[in-house]
């Protein structure tokens, strides 16, 4: 009961404010571009498999690492905005 009420109220409130944000565009252009890129990659992969794997791995690591690092910095910045007792 207690935990249920807390969880219910908390997420109801968050969902209420989240509802005011605009929806994202899911027209599928991103997925089409990824599918097309995968097609070209597959074609090149048939000729140069090791180069393709190396490029995907290095780019993939960069994107994943930079995204994670950015999210970490963002969350830390938000946390530092809250006033603390001193």
């Amino acid at each position, binding site marked *: *009961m*207690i*935990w*249920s*009420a807390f*969880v*219910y109220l908390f*997420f*109801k409130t*968050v*969902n209420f404010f*989240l*509802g005011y*944000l*605009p*929806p*994202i565009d*899911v027209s*599928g252009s*991103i*997925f089409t*571009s*990824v*599918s*097309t*890129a*995968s*097609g*070209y*990659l*597959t*074609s090149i*992969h*048939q*000729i*140069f*498999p*090791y*180069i*393709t*794997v*190396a*490029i*995907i*791995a*290095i780019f*993939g*690591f*960069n*994107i994943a*690492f930079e*995204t994670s*690092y950015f*999210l*970490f910095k963002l969350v830390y910045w938000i946390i530092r905005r809250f006033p603390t007792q001193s």
Partner: protein
Amino acid sequence: MALIFIFGPKFALASLLYLQPNQPASFVTAGDSVPNASLVGSFIASSDMILASSSVIQAVVQNDSNYCQGSASMYLLISDSSSSQSGSYGTFIFTPTSDRLSSVQIASIIPSSYDSLISGNTYYFRLHSQCSGADYLIGGESISGYFYFSGYLSTESINTTESKIYNFSYSTTTELAHIEGFWKATTTPGITERLSFYQESSLGQEDFVQVYATTTGFFSYDFPFRGSSYTTTGTTTAPLLSEFTLNARLDQYGPIVSFTQTDILPLDATSTSISGLNYGVNDYSTSTRNLLLYPEYECGITSMTGCVKNAFIWAFYPTQDSLNQYNNFLQLMQNKAPFGYFYSIKGSLSGISSTSTSIFNITIPANLKQFIFDPFDIAIASILWFFGSIHIYKRLKDVDI
């Protein structure tokens, strides 16, 4: 209708054959004996077809409990005549395995002078059995079987058996649900046929299992489900569910259309409800389940601990509604900017693959590939990995937390 002659042990089959297009469904006629075996199906060649060595015919018959003991075998004849064996191309023997007949290459039964099927002609498949020296079929009962024909070098492909669930049964003693059917595997990336099983009750959905089709053909699976009573300790009485439903679905999962959505095409579904009436007296001793979701204990003068447990559960155990609010929150966040774009990009990146369909194809001579392209590929990739490692090291070195 012919008389039924029984020689030796009875071999009973199921009737109603699922056939390819252009073929009417037909029924096994009771009691016909070889060579007047009953007509079980016909096929109209829709175009001039040449049988390749890989052409296959697969027949499946479900036996009931009165299957033939000993040397049972099935004969399949293909002929251009509906009469007995006139014009028959050949016969071959299936060996029944778990009520099923295995596939056989057409080329092994077709004489070389009859390796072409003429467009517009009707060809007949016939099925009969031989048990302990006698040839007979017993019909008039509920029988089922299928023909699956593939491998034609034809401009037209023959539509084969549709993906379908043919049998869905369960046992309350072993607590296993048995599902049989037919499904297809494709080589198109992102397209899969999947068989899903789960049970549903007032406690929600449980025991969800999903199996992917890896080859085209018939499948047979057993899935465990939970019984209707709970495990308990002490002196409390085992509570029972009044009813729960076993569900089986066959769906085709298509390409991902968004980070949360996959195009799902329903192919077939079935369900069956189980109540206390379906359980025998002795089933309850083995049919127990662990307490799930919102458990309740017996509360009474003789079971005070149950009352205390129930009080704590009432106070602190979250309800399904409150947990659903969390799921709604996740769903909402994935659809709202700017958080949704992160999910979108993450989903897109996971779709990058070097094994999807090629946009273009380049054929390189094998010797050129071996002596020029492969060494070049390995050399450049080594250089890339070397400098990539240095880059990763330098980037990680500069991380400021």
